[in-house]
């Protein structure tokens, strides 16, 4: 485009020359007009292109049922009646921040406010600052840069050509943004935000977004999708959302593959302003990975019996705490608390509850079929020196876990016997075929009928069968049935 000289500026701005504009033969001016026309025709061409594209049914693509019909806004007012609006009733409470939904709904119904403002705007500042964009009045209405925020947003919604260049004052930019928000079109909101991002300093943009919740959320999401981590962190910091910022930063560790670098990154996260709880968790995360790296390094080349018998299926890196504990109960059981890989050390470092510890250790030792270890998990000595079995988890669960690890009946039986609840005990015994327990329970219940029924399920002449036989023949028992 040709550049206007200073005197042209004067020419354009002073009313003195107005009478001549129409037929002016001035070279530069006609050149300007020429290029203007060229610009316009490009836009118009595109426009017509859209309309003229013909679909399979012979109709222009622009008018097939689902695509947006490009019509002048005049049609709108005519059909307004036929599609009802939602009553903007007071049931919507106005919320604290900038744009509550109710005000959005209202904004739609009176576009006049925006219109008048932008008109007054284009009369003054626009012409002074951008004279080269001015063009003959006749086709002025069509030119996309002459449009109000409302019309611009409408064009954007419909995918028609538009220009954001003329929105230069902060006020205009914000009007444009608010208009986009008012039509709920996330696509347009983001488009405007991209424009603002490029044309406003981030401090100003952040400041303005503070009072505009909907726009802010779009902006945050856009930055997330674009992977603009740094700017995002800055934004959250500026908004005073320090916890969100900390989490956002912490999330980065997921992208780091190398465990050493990941550990270092987690270490750098420790000083971030997490909530108190989360700070503990992040500290744990760092400690965990640090330990895992140490354990992994030594176990990779470990040649202890257990590693040969049960080769490791995967590395322990980046596994959850409980998985690490299980691993340690599997491969490093009985190590002294001083070593990092010992179960007791892990239990202590990560403040693992007794219940959780027992569950995990039970699973690991049962898998290895070390029933002795399983036994000693539950053994407690009372003050008289008697050993007694106690468990923070119900013994029916213990039995369940043992069964899943295919424990032999003798082991199962012992634990089924420890179930407190008589019903659970009986059902457990039946389920895992602990005949002795079943028979004893029925005997205690003096339930002769059930015993007879159960006898039928057993193999003839098995010890259990004979036991029932003996019981049934015992005349001393007073059966209830």
């Amino acid at each position, binding site marked *: 485009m040709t550049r206007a000289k200073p005197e042209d500026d004067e020419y354009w701005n002073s009313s003195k020359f107005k009478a001549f504009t129409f037929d002016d033969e001035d070279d530069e001016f006609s050149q300007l007009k020429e290029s203007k026309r060229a610009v316009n025709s490009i836009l118009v061409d595109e426009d017509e292109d859209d309309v003229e594209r013909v679909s399979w049914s012979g109709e222009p693509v622009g008018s097939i049922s*689902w695509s947006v019909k490009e019509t002048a806004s005049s049609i709108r007012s005519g059909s307004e009646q036929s599609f009802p609006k939602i009553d903007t009733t007071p049931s919507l*409470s106005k919320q604290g921040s900038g744009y509550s939904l109710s005000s959005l709904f209202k904004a739609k119904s009176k576009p006049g406010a925006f219109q008048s403002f932008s008109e007054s705007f284009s009369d003054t500042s626009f012409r002074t600052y951008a004279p080269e964009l001015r063009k003959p009045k006749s086709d002025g209405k069509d030119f996309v840069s002459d449009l109000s925020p409302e019309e611009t947003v409408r064009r954007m919604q419909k995918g028609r050509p538009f220009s954001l260049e003329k929105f230069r004052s902060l006020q205009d930019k914000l009007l444009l943004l608010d208009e986009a928000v008012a039509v709920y079109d996330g696509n347009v909101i*983001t488009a405007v935000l991209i424009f603002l991002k490029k044309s406003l300093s981030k401090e100003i943009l952040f400041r303005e977004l503070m009072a505009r919740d909907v726009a802010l959320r779009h902006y945050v999401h856009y930055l997330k999708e674009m992977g603009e981590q740094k700017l995002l962190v800055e934004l959250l910091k500026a908004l005073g959302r320090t916890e969100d910022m900390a989490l956002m930063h912490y999330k980065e560790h997921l992208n780091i593959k190398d465990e050493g670098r990941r550990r270092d990154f987690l270490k750098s996260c420790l000083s971030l302003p997490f909530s108190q709880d989360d700070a503990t968790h992040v500290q744990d995360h760092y400690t965990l990975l640090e330990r895992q790296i140490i354990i992994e390094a030594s176990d990779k080349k470990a040649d202890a019996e257990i590693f040969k018998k049960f080769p490791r299926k995967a590395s322990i890196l980046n596994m959850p705490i*409980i998985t690490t504990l299980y691993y340690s109960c599997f491969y490093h059981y009985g190590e002294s608390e001083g070593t990092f890989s010992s179960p007791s050390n892990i239990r202590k470092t990560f403040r693992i509850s007794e219940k959780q510890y027992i569950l995990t250790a039970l699973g690991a030792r049962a898998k290895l079929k070390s029933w002795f270890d399983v036994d000693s998990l539950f053994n407690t000595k009372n003050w008289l020196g008697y050993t007694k079995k106690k468990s923070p988890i119900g013994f029916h669960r213990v039995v369940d876990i043992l069964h899943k690890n295919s424990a032999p009946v003798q082991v199962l039986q012992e634990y089924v016997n420890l179930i407190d609840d008589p019903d659970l005990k009986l059902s457990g015994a039946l389920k895992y075929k602990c005949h002795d327990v079943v028979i004893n329970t029925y005997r205690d219940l003096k339930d002769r009928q059930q015993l007879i029924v159960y006898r039928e399920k057993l193999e003839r002449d098995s010890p259990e069968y004979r036991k029932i036989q003996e019981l049934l023949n015992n005349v001393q028992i007073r059966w209830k049935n």
Partner: protein
Amino acid sequence: MAHTEWKDAPGLPDFSLLKRLARDQLIFLLEQLPGKKDLFIDADLMSPLDRIANVTILKFCLYTSSLKYTYFLFFFCRLCFLIRPRIQTVKWISDLVNADKVAGRFRRYKIIFTPQKFYACETVLEEQGVYGDVTTDEWNFYILPLDDDILSLELPEFFRDNFLEGDQRWVTTAGSALRLLQSVYGSFSKVYGIGRCAKMVYESWRELMEDGEQRTRQPEFAKVFLVDRDVDFVTPLCSQVVYEGLVDDLFRIKCGSVEFGPDVTSSDKSIKVMLNSQDKVFSEIRNEHFSNVFGFLSQKAKNLQTAYDKRRGMDIQQMKAFVADELKGLKQEHRLLSLHIGASESMMKKKTKQDFQELLKTEHSLLEGFEIRECITYIEEHINRQVSMIDSLRLLCLLSITENGLLSKDYRSLKAQYLQSYGIEHLLTFANLRQLGLLEEQQAGETLTVMESKVGKLVNDKTVGKLTDAFSSLAKKSNFRALSKRLALVPKSGEEYDLRVPRDMAYVFSGAYIPLSCKLIEQVLERDGWTGMEEVTRMLNGQEFAVTGGSSSSEARSKTDAQRIVLVMFLGGCTFSEISALRFLGKERGCRFIVVTTAITNSSRLLEALLDNSA
């Protein structure tokens, strides 16, 4: 017992038209590109595309491949990408174009966005310096009919984008889908809705209709109901027990078809099966409570045997007729029957393995607000044993929503145990769940603070303070217990519920709970609006609306079938249980429901969309 078609059911509009329109437009777009081309299709679009245009597309290109972020070999110098408008994908394409440029390869590139393009995507092309090298187009494929009464937008990301991120990019899409339905199938007499997004979608739809020309057509729907997913999170978090829902929970139905593995087919092959009303066996059991399905299938098997047995004693003429007329149908039925029996068996096996009964018992206790301590202990053990990560999360969320947040002590301890069992990076997941109001910590003295915070807002007018309010206001109180009482969602315990003869929609959850979303729909349709439900809507955070259609012909059409068709649009996804419940409701009330959803969802999909534990 099986839901068979009732006598005077209103006929449903023919939705296959939508498929044809979409297919035709796609063909048109592809025809515009001259010559042979490599066509790359977003992996997410493969199944939907399969439903509408399997063979026809291939006519235009020699080579089709699902778009994966891997290295390609290209055959032609024209590349066409058919993708969802996602920044990641566009970035990847830009890299590819730039790599070509560096290597001095000259090719033509075309991106077809579906259902629409986004400015953000075009900006990526511009920023990467490939705008112009790559041309773009839109394929306005808004709606995929999954069945006679299910229409899907196939946009699972709608849920996270809209409700978690607060991005309204899909609002216009949903509005356009409604506009499409209206312009093809005619107008409506009334629209109801509840939810922030529902309201915006309605407004967007209205704008679109005002812009376009008005068609005066015989309406095919009487009423439209729009509902946000976040109005009811409880329902999608419950284990599904109607057949179709259970199949979805266990095998994941994708675009109306499911892949049954070797354990179901009892062979070494997997079989892909379409699950819809065309499947005679399936259509009879899909809405049934699982406990009825076995009985039904075995009865069916017996009938089949009898039908086969007819052969005996036939003379040659009869046999000929039998083979010609019946045998094929019988064989078909036989095949389907054995598949569904296999599926049922496999489901039984899976469910008994993970103590399904106990899980259901816990869910029901939570819904009822009964023995909460025991529930917490159960959930804790579930977490401790590292059983399914999603199930644990699901139970936690159910606990939080039904109890209006967890006690501080419980929240901390359960969160800590969860992180220990499933990985500390789930910190991020917890932050998401909290923002959405799915899993929260009760604030001390919560009952008092409602008033206080309102006053506080007025006094402390710092922008920062306002902002945090605005953010937290999205995470709303669930008020589930009060809602459940008012709407009688949980039937009185102790009463026998005969699942063979369902008496209300609660049957989809073994008689323990009527889906909140469906109950709202029932109530509003009954009252013809929200009047009398002020208390309920207040507890649901307001945002309800009801508008009457403007077209004058509303009296004239009152006699037609259309009056009894209700279109329900779920914004953020809907479950098969809800669809079954609505089918039941329709049968009770003599109307038909058509479900439009942004995607079919279930507890796993819902929660997986909120996970943030991997890069």
